[in-house]
């Protein structure tokens, strides 16, 4: 009986933790695509880069966590705003910019991936950040490390803050107005280009936070960026581009599907079971669960 309880509780722990972290990264992607119509294919590599830079700052440069975290976010923002200045802004006015952005960001993803292999791949092939909290707590009767609990709490806080910002703050409402109809938003006096930049910055900051939380909860290697790109694109499409709530709900569906199927089936089937769940959701709501 005790064994069944442990397994049942582990489903909840795994579903919530994995789902919430993936939802954070997907929310970053969703904000950018929902606003700018930019399928940011390098989002997974920015996620990975955040984890790798956090690892480097902490283990190689000896920075404390409180200093390393804002430095990583700042580095992510510096990267995307440089790209915005050099590349992204050139296509804001194009009606068919989605495909252009897809090609540009895929190229960027390849370059970042190569850069990580060149820079970090020579130092190690696995990257574990020092746990920010020691020991473990019990979600009765399942033990969970305090570091992972901390990662979950931070992820949930980021998502709640993001939802509150989009609903309550005037800049957040401007973003939502552009999600819904950029022509009407323009007529209402919203500066569309500034809103695009806000979405790009906010989405990237959220993605870098997701990368750091993932590095705290799990261990990184240089392939995880591509895996994350696939997962977060799936979550964004099913949740509805631009919807943080959609990313959260579908992220949790992803986490729980994987955890529940793990109880009955092979991990390989469980890992890909989320695709079936997502296909089922798309069958019911072809434009995404929370589409505008």
């Amino acid at each position: 009986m005790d064994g069944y309880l442990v397994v049942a509780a582990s489903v909840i722990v795994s579903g919530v933790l994995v789902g919430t972290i993936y939802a954070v990264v997907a929310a970053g992607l969703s904000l950018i695509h929902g606003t700018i119509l930019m399928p940011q294919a390098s989002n997974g590599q920015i996620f990975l880069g955040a984890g790798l830079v956090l690892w480097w700052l902490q283990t190689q440069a000896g920075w404390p966590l409180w200093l390393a975290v804002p430095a990583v976010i700042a580095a992510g923002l510096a990267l995307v705003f440089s790209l915005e200045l050099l590349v992204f802004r050139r296509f804001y006015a194009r009606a068919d910019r989605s495909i252009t952005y897809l090609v540009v960001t895929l190229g960027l993803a390849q370059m970042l991936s190569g850069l990580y292999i060149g820079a970090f791949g020579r130092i190690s092939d696995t990257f574990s950040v020092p746990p920010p909290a020691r020991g473990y707590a019990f979600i009765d009767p399942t033990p969970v490390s305090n570091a992972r609990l901390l990662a979950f709490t931070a992820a949930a806080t980021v998502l709640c803050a993001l939802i509150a910002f989009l609903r309550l703050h005037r800049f957040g409402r401007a973003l939502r107005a552009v999600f819904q109809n950029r022509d009407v938003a323009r007529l209402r006096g919203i500066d569309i280009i500034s809103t695009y930049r806000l979405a790009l910055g906010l989405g990237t900051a959220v993605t870098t936070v997701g990368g750091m939380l993932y590095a705290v909860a799990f261990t990184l290697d240089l392939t995880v960026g591509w895996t994350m790109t696939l997962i977060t694109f799936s979550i964004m499409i099913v949740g509805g581009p631009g919807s943080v709530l959609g990313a959260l709900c579908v992220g949790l569906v992803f986490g729980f599907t994987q955890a529940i199927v793990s109880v009955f089936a092979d991990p390989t089937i469980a890992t890909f079971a989320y695709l079936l769940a997502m296909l089922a959701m798309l069958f019911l709501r072809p434009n995404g669960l929370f589409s505008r």
Partner: protein
Amino acid sequence: MTTNVRKATGRVIATGASVALLAVASIGIEASAAATLRVGWNSELSGAWTFTGGACLDAAKLALDEVNANGKRVELVIQDNQTNPAQAAAAARLLDAQEKVTLISGTTNSDTSLAIYGFAEDNHLPFLVPVAAFPRLTKPGTRETFRMEPDAVGWGYVAAKFFKSLKPNATIGIMSSDFAVNRAILAGLKYQAEKDGLKIVSEIVFPQTATDATVQVAQMKALHPDFVYVAGASAFDATLTHQLIDFGFKPEQLYHPFGAPKQILAWGESSAGSYYGTFFDHNLPNLTENGRRFVDAFRKAKGYSPGYQENFCYATVHFLGEIADKASAGRDQAREVLRGADSKEITTGVPIQFDESGARTEYMYVMQLKSVGKDDFTATKSSYLEWSAKTLPIYDLAP
């Protein structure tokens, strides 16, 4: 007339002297070329295996400096195969046709090694593999390929033998990622476990993209195995280890079939007490003087202690230095020297001998981790096994 005869005689003498001089010079050139063994170093210097290929080359260069300290005996012609089998075969072709190397070496990956294996066997080019454990590389009938790293099926054999030595009739749980070398290790483990009366209570195999094992670890915990065999792919190996320990498994219950330094550091300090298989460790008590020098030099250069992969590359170049005199005479001679090799690893004294299909005499150490710090770890030797490749039906078991 006399003048003409003199002129003709002079021309003949001059021509003869030139020919003789040229002959002497060419003998000199040949003699000097014969002293240097040209080796095509076809390795993973970019792509997914950058870290291993780069570390291997660093260790090889340390050995190269030592081997060539008193004259150039070995020359490495380096080619990056980008961790890509097609590129590895293309690089082998270039090393063969353009660089005219005597043999190829340098790979650290089974997939690229298999690609070169095909080329080497077809083109009669000796191939000395430093690091690659996939059994097919030395399947019966292999003529050109010789391997420094014992095959992966044997690693599973060692795991079973070790479990039995700790507890006869032990129950084993398996948690591993699905990749070719791991399938070979598991084949050896299952084969020997059955023979030795060990019981495998659960086998959970993860896809290579898996990131979390919370539920599976809970399921494993519910089965109360005596030992858990842990072999995750890349970063998942550390995640799996952390989650098993978080769930209450004692480190002494965990066995990793292989442990490389960066991998061990990623397991973290809470894994102290767990066991891992290896072919070299800087904590080994039987390191030779040269072995200790290698550890110090490598640590000074790279900031971490070398593991079995780095050691295979270092030992390979030293071994090439040993055979350079005979092997540099040509590919046929190189093949024969490799086939008849009876040497010892310069760092540990473990024998280097190959059977008729190029497989090395099998051996493995099992180490117990004692402490894990930021940049280094300590471990003690728990056991050492040496056996013949014929002890197990390796090529029937290997996938």
